[in-house]
Every structure is written in C-alpha cells, then in structure tokens.
C-alpha cells in the first residue's frame, strides 16, 4: 500500500460516530496503559491527550447561529507538520521527519528537556515523568514500514479514517467538501508547510475546541532558532576577531612607564 513517499491521513469528521475504536486500537498497538479517570459528564474520556493517550475523540455540543444543535466529534492527535516546531527545537534529533514526511520519535535520543511541548501549536507532545521522556503519535511508523495502515485507520468502522499518497488524499478531501457543501472545509493543507494529517470539518475551524484557526510556528521559536542562534556565534566570533584586531592595531594597555618611575622616585628607590 505505502511506498516511501509522503502520505496523508485523512480524518473525515462528518463520518465519525465517536465509537472510539481508534483510541483503543492506538493504546493496544502502542502498548499504552489506560489510567483510571473520573466521570465528568462527558463521553470524552480520558479528558485530554497524555503520555499514555496519543489520540482522543473530542466531544463537543455545538449550537449554530440558526439554533441547530450538533454533536461534534473530532479525533485529536499529532498533525505531522512539514514545518514542525517540535523538530525545529529538539536538541538531540529525537524528533525527526520520516521517509513518509511524518514526524517520528526516537525514544532513546529523547532527553526529556520538554522544549517541544512549548514549540507545538497543537499542544501535542506530552511528558512522562516516570521515563523522563516525551511521547506522541508517530503515525505507527513501523506499521507503515511493513506496508500496514496505522492502527487507528485499521480499526475505523465507518471510513472516517483513511491513509494514502499525499496528492490523492488532498484531492479526496476537496471532493468530499464539495459534496458536503455549507461550511464544510479542508483543514491542514494551507499552513505549516502542509500537515500530514488532514481534516474534513463540517463547521468552520474556529468552532472546534482546542483547534487553532490559523496555526503557525510560535514567534518565540522563530526568534530563538532563526535569529538568536546564529547571532550567538556571530557575536562571539566578532568579539574574538575584534580583540585580536585591537591587539594588533591599537595594542594592549600596559602600565605607564612614568607611573613606574614616579613610583620609584616617590619611594626613594
């Protein structure tokens, strides 16, 4: 099914029934424990993504301007960005782009610095204090490499989840939006260099909880990695070169010879 070229996972929210089979399949394949949670009056459980929950169906009750009630289901998880903030800040190379364009994670390289947490516009990477490492969805990289679909896609009974070559999936998403009409839209292809997870949303993006309308790499990451990082060695190197130049052209500041002589005279030596 998958050759080593860019893939996209399409999440068609209009076909999702919130059975949460993908949530279970993800935990099962990746051997992630289920931790006890409290009933909060919502089917959304656990309440948020975590080191042991890489994908989650978000349940949202929404009334549009016409007064129509809708129960929205959105599968949350890593978007696998092309311009990935997490890859950009990772000091050890633990987070990296795979041959499929997705963002993989090499657990053995992760040092638990948590820098990726603050760099992700979707708040995806989560910290496991027991292992002192970051965890997140890797789109079942080993399954892709074995020509298998990711566990979540495999488990989906309604066809809300599918995966395939990049161009084909983008075309499929736009075809679906055309059929749906209204506010339906494609989310993911227009920012961060194009994400490798694409949504077909039935409502405008700003309607959904925890979904940034126009996500981008945080300005703090740009200032830090694109401006200050190169400036650090330019400034350091400039000072070293300037000091050498000063030594050659101006010369060091030596004690005045007259200070020494005056001294001897004063002290009667």
């Amino acid at each position, binding site marked *: 099914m998958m050759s080593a070229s860019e893939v996209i996972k399409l999440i068609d929210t209009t076909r999702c029934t919130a059975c949460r089979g993908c949530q279970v399949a993800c935990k099962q394949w990746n051997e992630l424990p289920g931790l006890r949670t409290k009933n909060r009056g919502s089917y959304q459980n656990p309440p948020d993504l975590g080191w042991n929950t890489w994908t989650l169906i978000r349940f949202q009750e929404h009334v549009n301007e016409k007064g129509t009630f809708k129960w929205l289901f959105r599968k949350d998880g890593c978007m696998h960005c092309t311009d990935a903030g997490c890859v950009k800040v990772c000091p050890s190379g633990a987070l990296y782009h795979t041959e499929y364009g997705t963002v993989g994670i090499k657990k053995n390289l992760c040092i638990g610095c948590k820098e990726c947490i603050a760099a992700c516009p979707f708040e995806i990477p989560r910290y496991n204090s027991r292992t002192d490492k970051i965890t997140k969805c890797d789109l079942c990289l080993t399954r892709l490499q074995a020509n298998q679909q990711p566990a979540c896609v495999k488990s989906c009974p309604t066809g809300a989840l599918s995966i395939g070559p990049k161009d084909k999936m983008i075309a499929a998403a736009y075809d679906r939006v055309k059929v749906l009409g209204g506010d339906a839209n494609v989310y993911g292809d227009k920012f961060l260099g194009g994400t490798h997870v694409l949504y077909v949303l039935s409502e405008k993006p700003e309607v959904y909880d925890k979904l940034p309308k126009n996500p981008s790499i945080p300005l703090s990451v740009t200032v830090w990695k694109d401006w200050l990082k190169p400036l650090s060695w330019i*400034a350091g190197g400039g000072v070293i070169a300037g000091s050498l130049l000063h*030594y050659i052209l101006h010369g060091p500041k030596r004690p*005045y010879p007259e200070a*020494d002589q005056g001294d001897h005279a004063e002290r009667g030596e």
Partner: protein
Amino acid sequence: MPEKGMIKATDLFERVVHWMLAGSCILLFITGLGMMFRELNFIGSFMGGLVGLKYVHNFTGIIFIVSLILATRMWWREAGRFEFPDDLEWIKQAGGYLWHVDHVAEAGKYNAGQKMFFLTVVGCGALMGVTGLIMWFPMGLPMGLVRWMYPLHAFGFVVLFAFFFVHLYLGTIGSPGSLPAMLNGWVTRAWAKTQHPKWLKEMEAAGKLEVYGEENKEAVSH
C-alpha cells in the same frame, strides 16, 4: 609569587567567588552549546550522553546562581554604582582603549567599563537563572510564559558569550598585569597607578593599602 612592594588588589574570598562564577559559567556555555547546536551533541558523550549533559547543565546552573548572588553582594558597592562625572568622562573616552587619549579619566577600584561589565553579568545572569529554572520546571505554568523563556535564555547567552571574550581579552593579554589580581591577588604599583589611580590614592590616604612585605593593621577584607 609576589615581590616586595606589590599591592593587594583582591582578597581570597573575592577570588574564590570569581572562579566559582567563571568556572560554572564556562561549563554552562559548553553544555548549553551542546544542546543548542546539534553538531555539538558529541559534547554529551563525555557526560554519559545528552541526558547526562542536561543534568550537568541544570545542576551547574545552581552553582552559577549561588556564585552570582555572592558576587553581587560582594561587588555591588564598588562596581554596581556609577560615580559622576568621572565615570561618564571615562565612557566618553572609551577608557583610552579605542583611540589615543592623553589623560584618561581616573578610575577608582573599578572603572566605568568594568562596572558596565559587572552590571551586565548581574542582569543577564539573573535572567539566565530565572528563565533556566522555569525551563527546568515548566509543568503547570502558562504556555505563553514558558514559550518566551527559551528565546530570553538564548538572548542572555548571546550577550554573556560575547562579553565573556571581552573579559577574557582585557583580563589577560589586552591589559598586561591584570591577571595576577585574580590569581594571587597581588599587582604592581605601576599597574594600580595606571588602571585605578583614584583607588590607590584613597587607600593610601586612608592607610588601608596592603603592601607586600610591609605591616598594615588597617588593611580590610571582605
């Protein structure tokens, strides 16, 4: 070894604090660079991998903060406050370091350049300590705050890294005779008269100057 007639510029406590600050600062530079540039990740291999390097960096940071507090308390009175008009005059002449100046404004224990360096180290050092601690323990803090700790930490590094080399140059070959002040604490009278004439006069007038080979019960230390 000091010779007869040399002058005591620093006491043992000052020198210990200086080298604690310098040593921790250099180790922080090296380990920080190991995390900042992926090409320098290999520095971690001397510390049991990059995880080890992270812990060396974090705990050295504690030593740095303690040293910085001691240094600030110790030198604030002499180097933390500008005295006008002498310091302003010194700045206008760039201390005679950049072009020829017939008569450089007389400096006290620390000249205006050293005061600016000291205040930069105190300011940027405090910035590094605060941002570093938040980066170490970011959980539960607002994301908007944590996000800006990284570029602020990098900014502090840019300034301190550049100033470090200025300090290194002027403390060694750029100003011969200065280094012993931080090694055994004894400097020549000619050096003191050239670099810190006002301090020399004041100390002599107060009878507090410690001269090698001469008794002085008035001599003070920190």
